[in-house]
């Protein structure tokens, strides 16, 4: 039902596109689920103005984009040349066999720039020899702190190589010194990513396979006894951490780089950014990858290829970082003349993604349109143990059963950092 709705959504602006497409042969229609807020799409259009050909930037939501491409595939006639979307958008399109293999194009691009290998691997969506998308840009989640907080750092702690224990001690120090809990977590926002990509991997080394292990229970106990008591309890109402950081309500926070950006843009002199902490198994973190793909139904696939080359050039990647706050996936980007706030965040992202003990934990793959349910399961585990004080192992067993059902029903094989599996991923 939502499919039909989205189809119409897409159709409405396609009517206007179509007339334009007929008039201009060389136009490349670039539909993107990123930068669909007005101010951002204006900046994206400004960057695309540098492209040699004519690029028409069409912002969209994820659902409508998928429905449109599937509809165009069954009609054997298309209007969209290039797709820009999160990693998780592509499996549905790939499963329906709607995307070109971009292996040759990628080889051509890699003659001039080096594209991040692990992201290239992601673009194959688990296959060996079919490049469904080429990575375009990346983002992740980091920590941010008010400079006032730095004096309470535990003895001997290196802010660029924190452990979870040190973070907890730091939070405790701040609370004892100022009388207020100063650590904030976006529980009303993207907190499930904190659990999936940071907390669980740092203790278990994986995201789902270790879900109901003793290590996972240890992690929840740590959260319950050492971190949450010194976390601002109004965290349950925080969506974007830049807000409480700017208001001074919290001094140390975790969030998506884009959701911390406002603080660094407005008061770069007051804040520092640093990598997320490491646990017993390593430094879990979640890279967010945005990719570029060409549908079979593209009316102008050559133009789409050219636009991909343009988007992966170090100049364009630098401009995207400067103006839109997404990080490069290619080497050779000039980061010298960045605005102060962007530079601070950029350094933290760099430190995190190159940390020797880093465990990159990918967004869930292969769950199709049930990707949201896994977030619910992780949040349930946290809420029940940390907020309601239920027994960790019992909760993990129960929620783990729900997780296994979800994996079995969708047949999703394990994704990084869990070791690959044949068939549906199995919990330990």
């Amino acid at each position: 039902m939502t499919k039909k709705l989205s189809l119409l959504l897409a159709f409405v602006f396609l009517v206007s596109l179509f007339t334009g497409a007929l008039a201009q042969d060389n136009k490349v229609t670039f539909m993107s689920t990123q930068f669909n807020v007005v101010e951002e799409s204006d900046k994206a259009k400004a960057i695309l103005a540098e492209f040699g050909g004519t690029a028409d930037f069409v912002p969209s939501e994820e659902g409508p984009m998928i429905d449109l491409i599937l509809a165009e595939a069954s009609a054997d006639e298309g209007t969209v040349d290039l797709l820009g979307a999160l990693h998780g958008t592509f499996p549905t399109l790939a499963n329906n066999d709607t995307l070109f293999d971009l292996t040759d194009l990628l080889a051509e691009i890699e003659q001039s720039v080096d594209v991040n290998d692990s992201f290239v691997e992601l673009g194959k969506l688990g296959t060996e020899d079919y490049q469904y998308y080429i990575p375009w840009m990346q983002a992740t989640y980091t920590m941010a702190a008010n400079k006032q907080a730095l004096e309470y750092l535990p003895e001997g702690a290196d802010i660029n190589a924190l452990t979870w224990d040190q973070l907890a001690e730091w939070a405790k120090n701040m609370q004892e010194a100022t009388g207020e809990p100063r650590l904030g977590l976006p529980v009303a926002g993207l907190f499930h990513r904190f659990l999936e990509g940071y907390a669980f991997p740092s203790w278990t080394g994986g995201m789902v396979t270790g879900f109901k292990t003793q290590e996972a229970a240890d992690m929840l106990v740590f959260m319950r006894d050492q971190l949450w008591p010194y976390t601002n309890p109004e965290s349950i109402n925080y969506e974007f951490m830049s807000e409480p950081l700017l208001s001074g309500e919290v001094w140390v926070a975790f969030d998506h780089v884009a959701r911390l950006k406002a603080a660094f843009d407005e008061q770069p002199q007051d804040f520092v950014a640093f990598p997320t902490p490491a646990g017993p198994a390593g430094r879990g973190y979640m890279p967010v990858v945005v990719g570029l793909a060409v549908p079979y139904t593209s009316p102008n696939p050559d133009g789409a290829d050219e636009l991909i080359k343009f988007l992966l050039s170090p100049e364009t990647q630098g401009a995207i970082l400067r103006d839109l706050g997404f990080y490069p996936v290619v080497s050779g980007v000039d980061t010298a003349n960045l605005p102060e706030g962007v530079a601070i965040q950029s350094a933290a992202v760099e430190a995190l993604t190159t940390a020797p003990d880093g465990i990159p934990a990918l967004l869930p793959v292969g769950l199709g349109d049930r990707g949201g349910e896994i977030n619910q399961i992780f949040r349930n585990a946290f809420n029940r143990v940390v907020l309601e004080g239920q027994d960790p192992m019992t909760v993990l067993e129960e929620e783990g059963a729900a997780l296994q059902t979800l994996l079995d029903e969708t047949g999703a094989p394990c994704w990084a950092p869990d070791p690959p599996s044949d068939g549906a991923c199995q919990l330990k």
Partner: protein
Amino acid sequence: MRKLHWTPYLLLLPSMIYLTLFFAYPMVASLQLAFRKDVQYLKLREEPESDAAETGTLAMQTAVAVLDRMRLEETLPNGRTRPIYWFRVQAEDTEGTTVEGWVNQENIFIESRTQSDTARIVTGEAAKEWTFDFVKRMVNDFRFGKALRTTILLIVLIIPLQFILAIVMGLVLQSGIRFTNFFLYIYAIPLGVSDLASGILWYSIFTQRGFLNSWLVELGLRERPFIFIQSGHENWMILAIVLAEVWRATSIVMVIVVAGLQGIPKDYIEAGQVFGANLWQRIRFIILPRLMPSLQVALILRTILAFQVFAVVVAITGGDVMTVLANETYRWYDPARFNNSNVAAAYAGFIMLLSLGISFFYLRTVRAQEERESQQ
């Protein structure tokens, strides 16, 4: 009252037609969502063509052995060629029989089209099956019990407060004081306020750096802000939600109460005064009984609407730790969250059952009372 007549049916006809068109049909469709599951089956073909004879049927996620493959090519309108792969696969179907046949690339996941010798079925033809899975899913979710408890708690706390306040407002407006127009205007303002706006209003008061904490600190009652909105202090969150809802939704009750008070002939009240009834006696024995039909409508209306409120809860508490049934419906429906409209439909059906049950209970109670009174 009149004898049986076709007039009432004629009068009701436009409404019935309208509601059937815009409600009954979609409502059936939504209930189907809660009890019907989409399943897919893939049909194997005798030849590598989509209209060739069927040789078997496989369920989703079945692992298959690849026996043979065939590469075709299609020239696309854009001038490029597109590879089309067919695979001859073998596997056990749901009944345990080994079946064999051709499938298209778009129905399977295969690591390498040219080399892999195993694959997995991922898409097929859609079919529908009856299921209780979604209802089970709802009931087993640990938020279900919390949401139900909170919803009922809020109704129990909010509705009596609202009715007392609304009747007080109505009596104040009917007491013939000066500036009645002005007061009525003020009291009517929340009529036009959405629950989202009301939630944000009270969030600005109760949040950590909100107005209430500002006053507590400035008056020296507290050294530091008190955190009202936190998981350990559900009572404070409930209080904030109750205040926001009483603030917002009492005006609607007041409108109905005032409309009802208008319908009470002045003589009745004056007669009461002449016979020396005091204010409370006048309210209890003259005004309230006459107000009953209006209050009944207001009560049913408010209870049913109370089941559907969630923006207040989300605006004040974030909607994760503190949750209500309508919020769960929305969270399961929301494409950006759990994106499962089936479970959402199960929640919706549950809310409808509760609302119906309570309305039926109200109607019965009021009628039983009327009958008792008419017998006396």
